[in-house]
């Protein structure tokens, strides 16, 4: 069952990549705020315009 080393190896490597991403995200403060991102994504509404207008969002 040597093939298991291939799938194990690939899977563990993948897990390590994601672990790195997780650590990066935590350190960069991606998860400091676990409340407002869920709400903010609702507020990003854009406008559809045919001509330029100078209205601003927020």
């Amino acid at each position, binding site marked *: 069952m*040597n093939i298991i080393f291939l799938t194990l190896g*690939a899977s563990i*490597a*993948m897990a390590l*990549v994601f672990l790195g991403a997780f650590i990066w995200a935590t350190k960069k403060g991606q998860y400091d705020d676990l409340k407002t991102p*869920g709400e903010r*994504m*609702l507020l990003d509404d854009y*406008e*559809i315009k045919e001509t330029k207008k100078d209205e601003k969002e927020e």
Partner: protein
Amino acid sequence: MSASVQPNQGIMDRIVYDDDVVKMFIYATIFWGAAAFIVGLLAALQLAFWPANLELEWLTFGRIRPLHTNAAIFAFGGNIIFAGMYHSTQRLLKTRNFSDILSRIHFWGWQLIIVGALITLPLGYTMSKEYAELEWPLDIAIALVWVIFAVNFFGTIAIRRVKHLYVAIWFYIATIITVALLHIVNSIEIPVALFKSYPVYAGVQDALVQWWYGHNAVAFFLTTPFLGLMYYYVPKAANRPIYSYKLSIIHFWSLVFIYIWAGPHHLLNTALPDWAQTVGMVFSLMLWAPSWGGMINGLLTLRGAWHKLRTDPIIKFLAVAVTFYGMSTFEGPLLSIKSVSSLAHYTDWIIGHVHGGTLGWNGFLTFGIIYYIVPKLWNTKMHSQKLMNWHFWIGFLGILLYYISMWASGITQGLMWQAIGENGQLVYPDFVETVMRIAPLYWVRFAGGSLFLIGFLMLIYNVWVTIKHAPKKETVSYVEVPPLKSDVTAIGTGHRKLEALSLIFTVILLISVLVGSVIEILPTLSIYKYLPSSEKTEPYTPLQLAGRDVYIKEGCYVCHSQMIRKLPFDVLRYGAASTIAESMYDRPFQWGSKRTGPDLARVGGKYPDMWHVRHMINPREITPNSIMPSYPWLAAKKIDYHILRKKFSVMKMLGVPYDDEQVADADIMAEQEAAIIYEELISQDKSLESIKDTELVALIAYLQSLGQRTTNEEVSQSNR
């Protein structure tokens, strides 16, 4: 690029989104969705009424079933994923896609690959590995287009104007990286012709790699990207924030770390070593918790807005989709328990389970997203709410009919296979008896699929009229964001691009390191090391190998397994349990995943050659009520002897113990083998002259070798 970002009075940057590419992917989703459903319906009809293949080889079940699965997953599913990703990512990150050109190469490249599949699969060019059937030129094309997509996506992340990466983006990232790795590792193959290759893995190794891939194709193509879409479109459509953002983060990270280990649950009770089976089962059970956490999170997003379930068809589609996600992820771990698998594996229960996920979760989520996105993109309203409601109810009824009929069929047949009487014998020794019992349910499934398609036709009409009556003036969507602090004057130019490139470079480097290390350890993974020395298996003769490739080409594995499980009723019906050594030269492995017909692992020597001739030309002459299609064309097509030398040399290169002489004379040897079988047949029936040197002869040579090439005494005794 620079045109998309315009300084606006020096205060805010106006970022114009690229909605054209989203529209293109939406069109493609609808177009290929119709194709996938129609082909699926044709396949379903053939199980109830086999002549629905119009007696054309290109439309026969073994060839169009892979076409259906590929079209549904990668064409319908793929295009909506890309549409949703490009639409939501731009808005979540408040930036235009990294490169319009890459977006378009991605779009057209993907559509060309689909066209390639549409042509090659009906012609019988297949790797026979489920959801990875496409041959090597298309495999390379997929890898290239995927890398382009990855560059474009990570480039977009790099030039984002929002620091925070919303949870949906994380799901997209996991999808892109993991699918790249899975696809490349599972597709390492050596070409022998333009559309024919052999995988470097054999037998149990091939099986394990394939289902490591196959399960994760479901996990990282049909689950994680759709969860990303769920986390964006459900809150948007309900205008409510996700129930718990914290839970969504936990959902993501736990799925990503657990999912990739669950693959072996596709190989329970087989020759795969027990400990590997147990690992697969345990990780599958662990998936229960995060999946349900995610499902509850999606549903509770509707808190305080439950009334919309009555009034808003988009919410109906999305809520039911999330519910089906919950059902499928409940059923999946359940089916991964060894004892449940012993009943359900190889039956229609699995087909029902998969379609609960695909029709219910992927399908309904897609429909909800299309109904949400089309009016936004075309700056209008959907033509008819009433038609959307009709689509919902008809589609829902279709899924229920499909799901329930397949449950009933799978459990009925599974129990009949298991039934052992007081005398210790099988209660239903004739396989066809168990098929006849469930045949009516195939009509119910066909009806369910038809309803689902009718609902989809309503969507097509509704969307078509909506777009036709949409305002004619070109519109653009944009957002205004504060300019970058570092370099206000050089927005969207050099510096940011460079930063983007470094992120893209890092990701590509990661993937290539992964793939590189995988390729590096490959040569050390010799299958021969762990095989018992007492058990020898003969390699295939040239004609057997030619016949094996006919077996693969016709997609026999779609309905016939070659894996007798270590279960009493399997052994009673088919003979001694299959061993690892028996399939040690099988490239690709043919263990199969479904028994619409009986297992063939020990069919060799069971019937005379003449039986096979008559059976292949008309199965009903041998087995009344058989639902197997007739294969008259096999008795007309000539064997390509010439290519056998090349095939043998590739096999030798991959470690099969052929000597140089065998490789050099492979074609001559095959002709001699074929002549012996032919002479024997013609001595019994003079009218068979035309089958000389045909694929039918090669196929018979292969079928007669099944279970016969081993020195294992237990096995050879059970064959008598």
